[in-house]
């Protein structure tokens, strides 16, 4: 089920393709470059566009009835206007910016929590690890979407956009923590860690100086995957109408389009434009994360 695919440990699926590198060195570099380059180009264009363009926006796109309703695509309104009198193009630009911002903020939070929890559990071990992993397993077991819907129903109307992000962090850190712990477990047995320990480094120093640099490459990949996961989750909530739908996001634009039956009133652009934008953004994020992974793997020569 791709709505929550990131719950099924995205790192696991992107880490494993590396063995291919041993068998076809020449062709893999070509593949790697294509993936990563393509992903980065998509992200760069969409990211830069959505962060610079809002400065030139004629009006706040979330205000209704700024323009005539249901205008067709034209030079003034690049994607036309919708049934609420909003310019679809500008709404979309703001939506991509807000979704990306939310995704990055959530990913920062999730990455910090997951790293701290996962590294400490994996490295310290013992009873501490067992208790922490019990909580991690529980948070993985609790299905995210129903919980989010309850929270959404409870706090609807009196919440800020950031609260939604906070809730996603609260229920999104467990998978990443599990991955980081698995890495920490294998690292714990390596020689250079023992070396550091015998040289008198304490736990904190080992975590920061020895283990962290080693896992940081995975962190980048995990980070991008979390951005994808956060945008997806918020958008899912918005499509159901349980996020802050007044704020333009990739989900809320689809929410309004569906709510005003854009499909049956022939306003395809209103519905199709955000769909294409979302798919492009997600493809960009996905290609970047798998591309990065391959790049790191081949750099390390891991087979």
């Amino acid at each position, binding site marked *: *089920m*791709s*709505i*929550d*695919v990131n*719950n*099924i440990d995205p790192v*696991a*699926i992107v880490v*494993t*393709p590396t*063995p*291919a590198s*041993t*068998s*076809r060195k020449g062709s893999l570099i070509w593949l790697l470059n294509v993936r990563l380059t393509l992903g980065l180009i998509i992200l760069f264009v969409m990211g830069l566009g959505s962060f610079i363009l809002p400065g030139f926006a004629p009006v706040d796109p979330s205000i209704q009835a700024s323009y005539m309703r249901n205008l067709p695509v034209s030079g003034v309104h690049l994607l036309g206007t919708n049934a609420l009198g909003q310019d679809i193009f500008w709404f979309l630009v703001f939506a991509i910016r807000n979704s990306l911002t939310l995704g990055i903020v959530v990913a920062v939070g999730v990455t910090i929590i997951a790293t701290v929890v996962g590294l400490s559990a994996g490295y310290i071990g013992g009873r501490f690890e067992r208790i922490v992993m*019990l*909580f991690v*397993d*529980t948070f993985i*077991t*609790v*299905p*995210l*979407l*129903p*919980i989010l*819907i*309850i*929270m*959404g*129903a*409870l*706090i609807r109307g*009196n919440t800020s956009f950031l609260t939604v992000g906070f809730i996603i962090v609260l229920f999104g850190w467990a998978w990443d923590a599990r991955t980081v712990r698995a890495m920490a477990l294998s690292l714990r047995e390596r020689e250079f860690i023992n070396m550091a320990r015998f040289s008198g480094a304490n736990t904190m120093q080992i975590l920061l100086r020895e283990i962290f640099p080693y896992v940081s490459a995975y962190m980048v990949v995990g980070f991008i995957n979390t951005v*994808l996961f956060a945008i*997806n989750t918020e*958008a*899912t909530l918005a*499509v*159901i109408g*349980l996020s802050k739908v007044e704020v333009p996001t990739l*989900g809320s634009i*689809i929410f309004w389009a*569906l709510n005003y039956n854009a*499909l049956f009133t022939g306003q395809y652009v209103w*519905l199709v434009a955000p*769909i294409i934008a*979302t*798919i492009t953004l*997600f*493809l960009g*994020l*996905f*290609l970047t994360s*798998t591309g990065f992974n391959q790049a790191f793997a081949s750099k390390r020569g891991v087979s």
Partner: protein
Amino acid sequence: MGVVSFVAKRIGLYLAVLFIGLTITFMLPRLMPINPVDGYIGQIQSRANGTLTAEAIAELRVNLEQLYGLKGDVFTQYVSYLKRIVLSFDFGPSFTYYPQPVSAMILNALPWTLGLLLTSTVIAWLLGNLVGLVAGYFHKQKAASLLEFVGILLYPIPYYILAVTMLLLLAYIFPVFPLSATFPVGQMTPEKFGMVIYNSLLPGITLVLAGFGWNILSMKALTVATTEEPYVTYARLKGTSNWTRMTRYVFRNALLPQVTALALSLGMVFNGALLTEMIFSYPGIGLVMRTAANGGDYNVLYGAITISIIAVATAGLVIDLLYPLLDPRIRHK
């Protein structure tokens, strides 16, 4: 001896996970600044056009608090909550459909959700693994990377977008399927059964497409890794055919991690159920939850969440206990 302690440990973990999960669902609404009883009284009052007297409201409040287990301090509530759920599987009555108990509503909806979701999850798993196997086994050929491309393209698409697109394409532009599913009530006849199948096809296809991509990618990765194992090389040198090697040597060994993945994706079934049933208006737990969320019917929401927690945890337990039987490489010391 080793087996017994392994099983005991795993069951202990299962119980602990259930306990923490139930505690979280208990705590969540109590941390929220909203009281369901107030909401319900408000509803009744607006229905009665504000003619209720203050005494009547106070009486109603006492009754409701007793009914919904909101009486006493948090700890008393918590104990009675666990007692009710664990011992009698009782989530109280629904707020919206008042005297009807939540457990009955959920049991009515469950067969729809399970029927659609389990079927499509299993089909997606089988198809994805087969395509992934071929893509991974022949990964040196250009044509096979086309198969992987299908996975790359399908995997990152958010589920709701896929669903809306499918609805747009197959129900609106090419009206092959109905826009909104209709389901006959009453006695099941072969004719009605056909109708149910026909109406379930579109959400089913969407679910298969959504689950498909991930399975292709992970199976492909596993297959590539397995293909490089020495015993596969040995089989090739021994002169076995491509087909034998692919099915007997690679497939059987690469499949094992995918069994675990299947268990995990059963948990996703409930997430998928929500969106699918909302977008395709398919009767099931998801639709029940949607209505409950809109109407502030918290008892129903908790019932549904508890069911999904129990189901996901149980699926994980069963798979973990079966896994050593499937994979001889795993040893429990």
